[in-house]
């Protein structure tokens, strides 16, 4: 599907308060730009992200959802991101199974010191989602044409 160059994707980024949100702050204070399409929602820990939030975002019109948390082993709550990792592994695999483009979901571990990584991650993720175009499949899952 040819993608309109002027089309802007909607991207929701869930960031854990302790590492990734701070990493995003560092990207900001280091003036490392990434597209304005990314909107960050702060959660205490990556393990707070319910798969329902991700599905909800897609249902309401998001084109990509990314979850960022502390690196495994560095979780502020010691184990939260391990659970998040399992949940997202299974959820993303399911979405892929349903035929929803796998490029629309991502998990990335970004520490508070990784402003550069945060910005690079967002840049590459937006580029990927932009290439995929507007997300229609999940919404159309129950609308046979």
């Amino acid at each position, binding site marked *: 599907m040819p993608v309109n160059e002027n089309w802007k994707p909607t991207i929701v980024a869930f960031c854990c308060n302790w590492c990734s949100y701070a990493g995003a702050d560092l990207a900001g204070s280091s003036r490392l730009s990434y597209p304005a399409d990314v909107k960050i929602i702060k959660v205490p820990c990556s393990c707070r992200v*319910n*798969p*329902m939030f991700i*599905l*909800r975002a897609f*249902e*309401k019109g998001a084109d990509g959802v990314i979850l960022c948390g502390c690196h*495994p*082993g560095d979780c502020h709550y010691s*184990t939260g991101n*391990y*659970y998040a*990792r*399992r*949940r*997202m*592994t*299974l*959820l*993303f*695999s*399911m*979405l*892929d*199974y*349903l*035929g*929803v*483009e*796998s490029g629309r*979901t*991502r*998990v990335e571990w970004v520490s508070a010191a990784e402003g550069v990584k945060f910005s690079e991650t967002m840049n590459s993720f937006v580029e990927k989602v932009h290439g995929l175009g507007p997300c229609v*499949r*999940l*919404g*159309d*899952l*129950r*609308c*046979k044409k």
Partner: protein
Amino acid sequence: MQEMIQRAKALLESGQVSRVLGWKKGETEFDVEPAFFDTAESLDGLFYNAFCGANLSKYLIEAGKKEGKTLVFLKPCDSYSYNQLLREHRVEREKAYIIGIGCKGKLTVNKIPFDGILSVQGADYPDYSENLTVETLYGTKHISYKEAMLERCHVCKGKEHVVYDELLGESQDTVDAERFAQVTALEAMAPEERFAFFQAELSKCIRCNACRNVCPACSCRKCVFDSTAFDSAQKANTTSFEEKMFHVIRAFHVAGRCTDCGECSRVCPQGIPLHLFNRKFIKDINTIYGDYQAGADLESKAPLTSFRTDDAEPGVGRG
């Protein structure tokens, strides 16, 4: 069947149990439904044949709230569901007297491709014949037993009961297919094909909630889809969140807890192969985190409430 009735009567009369949970015959022998029996006389109506597919374990949640013990007949695969409920503290072991009943594969009338079915012979337990004789409005027809068997019996987990007080009757191995073959076949398809497949299947859904109501893992006192906690209770709205995501969310909620009992697919009035969602999670769990069978025991750690520090990163298992 007579053995079952006698044993149930004895237990009821001795006061060891206060009621019996089993099946009763509907209009025909292929129309069977779960039933409670409170008296010895009523037990004459207890019925068990190859159409007793219904998993009785979930009824024990409500039965457990009543006085005294409930005698229940559990097929091997039902006992997994019961064990899982036990694990989740939804039932108390002391409140049930479990007779593990033998199983030789369960049938569904939906797989008998004849019109005007009047009766089906050859499905009596414990004796059944290799071929079913089907009386229809248009004459007598034949179909093999296996052809009319539920999908889940072709990939049966095994005929061993994982929990019981006593065993009754014999079982017979029914496995003749690979459990994950359907999932694997779907995975091998192109994303567009998969999408088309699921879109076609899910578009049939009428949101009758039969799958949810029958599922032993969907035993929440109040379903998330009936509550306002997620802004998800919007049954009337066709473009709502719930409408689109119901089956995905349901599958995730039972992931790691689903015993693969297959009831969802059995009861779906639209014939949607709902087990394909649950079985995808089970397959992923098995390949990524190691084999796990929900309900097999009470101790092992469930895949979604445990972890390893060297777990795979999200993205594995994708096409």
